[in-house]
Every structure is written in C-alpha cells, then in structure tokens.
C-alpha cells in the first residue's frame, strides 16, 4: 500500500501561520520587484526598510518620536475622558440637559479633527498644546456619545429595584447607573483611543507642514521630515508600519482591559 504525499494546502495551516502567510508572500513579491530596480532608486524595498528601521532604532530617533506621540495621545485622551464621561453622565441621566446640548454636540461631531487644526495652530502655536487640543477633540465625541448611550439605556427595572431597597437617588447613580454604563464607556474609550492615535499622526504631519524641520517632534513630524527634506521613502514606510503596529497594540490592550474589567459579561 502506498501513501500518497499530500501537498500542504493553506487550509491545513494553523491560524497563526495563515495570518502571516499572505503578508509574507506580498513582502517577497515586493522584494523581488525591488531587485529589478536600479541601485540608486528611491523606491522603498523590504531590505532597505529593515535597514532604515535598524538605523532609526539605534539612533533612538524612532523610539523618542513614538514616545512623544504616545505621550500626547495619552494626555489628550485623559482630557477627553474627564470631559466626555463627565458630560456624558450628565446628559445621559438628565433629559433636560440632553435635549439642550444634543444640537450643539451633533453639529460639532461631523467636523473632522483636522478641520479644527487651523484654529488650534493660530491659538496654541505649533507645539504640544495644539496637538493635545486635536487629540482631545477627536477622542471626546466617541467617549461622550457612548457614555450618553450607556447611561440613558440603563435598565429601568434595576433603578426601581434599588429604590425598593431604600437606596437614595445619588447613591443609585453611583451604585447602579454608573456600573451599568461601564461596558458602553469602555467601548467608547477603545474607539476614542483609536481615533486619537489617528488624529495625532495627522496633526503632527500638518504641524510639520507649517513649522518645517523645526517642528514639535512626534512620529508624524518625523514622517514629514522624511517627506519634505530627506525624501527618504524607506523611513516613511518604517513610520507607517510603526503607526499601524501601535494602533493594533492599543486596540488589543483596550480589548483585554474590557475583558478584565467585565468578567460578568460574555
């Protein structure tokens, strides 16, 4: 009896391998294509990108810029959390407040963070305060909207149950309404962090356009310098990859936190 050698199919690979297989294939194709180009071509190639990554990491530039951007996101996100959740609880628990503020919120919400950049730069200059304003603005709306939703949709029966246990109004807010709204607030936080990270890169790029190489730093500003001054496409690709990986890590971190903080769900 002869056993036929089975050709390994993609379907039989473990999930992790499947996730890597296609990107790896694309990188190989990209590298092969790059080898056909002349040596002094500015087009990015995987090998050059890796070399650029190593050099930028060794010099500390990449890490410093990334930390700078992350620091701004965390600070801007913090401001947005205080304002967004605070106002959200107020709007969610009082119909009067909600009905009065809703038109204002809904008319600002569609204005992209980048669209307030001109005002932010004119008021705060090209430094960190302008960047923080953009990030806080971007993160504010997902936090607000989800908090309002979570608080206003709390199961009324739970509030009634609390009342029949002799629990006062204020105590009910903290013991029942706020915990019941936590899942929505966490979802809002994850979405807000995502848009905050997107906004900071765009803001730093745009601020770079205004202030040039003397910009305020951050990974977006680094990309601008590669684009406008050194014309280093490999450096830009390194920055893009770092931005993408960090976005993924942020998302996973917040998902893990949701899982950890809400053991009563699932």
């Amino acid at each position, binding site marked *: 009896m002869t056993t036929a050698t089975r050709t390994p199919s993609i379907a039989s690979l473990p999930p992790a391998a499947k996730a890597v297989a296609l990107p790896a294939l694309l990188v190989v194709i990209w590298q092969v294509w790059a080898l056909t180009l002349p040596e002094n071509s500015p087009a990015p190639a995987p090998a050059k990108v890796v070399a650029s990554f190593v050099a930028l990491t060794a010099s500390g530039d990449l890490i410093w810029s990334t930390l700078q951007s992350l620091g701004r996101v965390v600070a801007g996100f913090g401001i947005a959390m205080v304002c967004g959740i605070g106002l959200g609880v107020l709007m969610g628990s009082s119909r009067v407040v909600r009905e009065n503020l809703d038109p204002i919120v809904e008319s600002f919400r569609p204005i992209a963070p980048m669209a307030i950049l001109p005002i932010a730069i004119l008021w705060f200059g090209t430094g960190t305060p302008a960047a923080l304003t953009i990030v806080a603005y971007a993160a504010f709306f997902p936090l607000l909207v989800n908090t309002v939703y979570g608080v206003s949709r709390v*199961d009324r*029966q*739970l509030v*009634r*149950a*609390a*009342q*029949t*246990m*002799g*629990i006062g109004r204020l*105590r009910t807010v903290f*013991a*029942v309404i706020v*915990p*019941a709204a*936590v899942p929505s607030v966490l979802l809002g936080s994850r979405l807000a962090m995502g848009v905050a990270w997107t906004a900071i890169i765009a803001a730093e790029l745009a601020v770079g356009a205004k202030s040039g190489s003397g910009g305020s730093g951050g990974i977006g500003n680094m990309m601008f310098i590669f684009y406008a001054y050194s014309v280093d496409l490999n450096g830009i690709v390194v920055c893009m990859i770092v931005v993408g990986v960090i976005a993924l890590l942020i998302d996973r971190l917040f998902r893990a936190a949701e899982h950890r903080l*809400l*053991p*009563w*769900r*699932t």
Partner: protein
Amino acid sequence: MTVESMPSTTKPKLRLKNVSKEFVAKRTGQRTLAVSDFSLDVRPGEFLCVVGPSGCGKSTVLNMIAGLDQPTNGSIVMDGQPVTGPGAERGVMFQDYALFPWKSVRDNVGFGLKHGTPGNGMSAVARSKRVDHFVNMVGLKGAETKFPHQLSGGMRQRVALARLLANGPEILLMDEPLGALDAQTRMVLQVELLRIWGEAADHGERKTVIFITHGIDEAVFLADRVVVMSSHPGRVNAVIDIDIPRPRTEHVRSEPRFGQLTEEIWSLIRDEAYQAIA
C-alpha cells in the same frame, strides 16, 4: 370558614381604599383606567395571592403598594402610615428578578444591606453573616461567586428571593416570581417558598406576602386568601378564603378541596379569559 386566620377585627397590615390608577399616553393624551376603586385589607402575616386575566392591573396594584407608582385616586396605608414612595419595609421581587448583572450572587444578596436603609447601623461582619444566612437558606451555597448570567432561571429566582429576604421587609411584594420557570421547577419552589416564608412557624413570625400569579393552582397552593381581579378596568371581583390546612405538602394538589377551590376561582375568571382571546 378561614383556618387559623385571626379575627377579622385585627388591624390590617396594609389597607387599600378606593385606589384607582389612570395612565395617560404621552403622545396621544389617551387615558386608560388600569385600576378602578380597588379596596382591600391585607392582614398581618397572611399569604395573599392575586389572580386575574392578563392585563387586569395586577402589577399596577403591586407597583402602587411598592410606591413605584402613585395612585390617581384613593389611599394606601401601611400600619396607619400613608405610602408615598418606595421603601425597604416593602420589598419587591420582580418578575424578571432585576438582578445586578455585574454583581456576584453574594453581592446581589447583600446589595440593599450595603447601599440601602436595611444595612443602617449594621457592621460589615453582621452584614456578611446575614448574607450567608440567606444564601444558605435558599440553597445557593457554593454558587456565591457566580454572576447572574451563569445561573439557571431557578437559581436566579433564588438569588432574588434571598436578596428580598436579606433586606428584611415587613411586606413581601412578589410579581409573578415563578412565572418564567418550567412547571417542575415551579412546583418545587412553591413548596420551598412556603418553608422559607415560615409556614411551620408561629403565625406571628410570618411576613405578610402579596403574591401575584397567573396560575390559579399556584394561588390555591400558596395562599391564605386569593383576590380574584377582573379587567377593564382592574377591580376586585372576589376574595376567596383558602381553607386548606398548613403546612401544605405536595399531596395537597390531589385533594378534592384543592380541585374545588381551583374550579371556583377559574369559574370567576373563565368568561373574561375566553373574551380576551376571542
């Protein structure tokens, strides 16, 4: 011919006098009379069941006694004091249990003790002991750290009962607490409910219970008296004394008297029940 019930001259625990409730639809302004001219004296320590066709206003009456809804007319008086709002002396067990999904079984049972008036002046140790006591009483030992979503319907019902009892109310208001359970679980829990209520204990030890159900046999099995309501608008049709001696066991269900009483109540509701589905 009530059995072991006190003379009717005893002061009522709760008195509803000409209570009516009208709901006004916000958009259309349409008025619906849900409960009309409802009068009833509830005796201390009695187990009172309320039955009636769907939509007869049973839950509305219970919510008004709980203080969650205000009557449009009439008065509700408990121990001589008018009821004006919710209070821990009138505990409610809701039809859907209203457990806090983010709290474990233990923390649900102890919720009122921790945040509400029932825990006033109680030390943390005393509270914890009280929670243990009621967790054990309803047979939830070993499930203390579970969350509501991890429990079966019957176990959730036990959590809700333990939480109600832990708050130590004088009147237990129960809104179809066994309605969502399968028939077998319901019968087991009926017997257990009577045990926990203190059927075997002295009459003076028992809590006053107002229990809403759509099960006529359930009402006959549990109650000292059954209030039969009719609908459109909701009002008292009849009050039936259940003269089956306590403590009651499973055998009661096969006794002729049980069947007679069930039939008597059903005959009061039958016409409306048929009309409702016609």
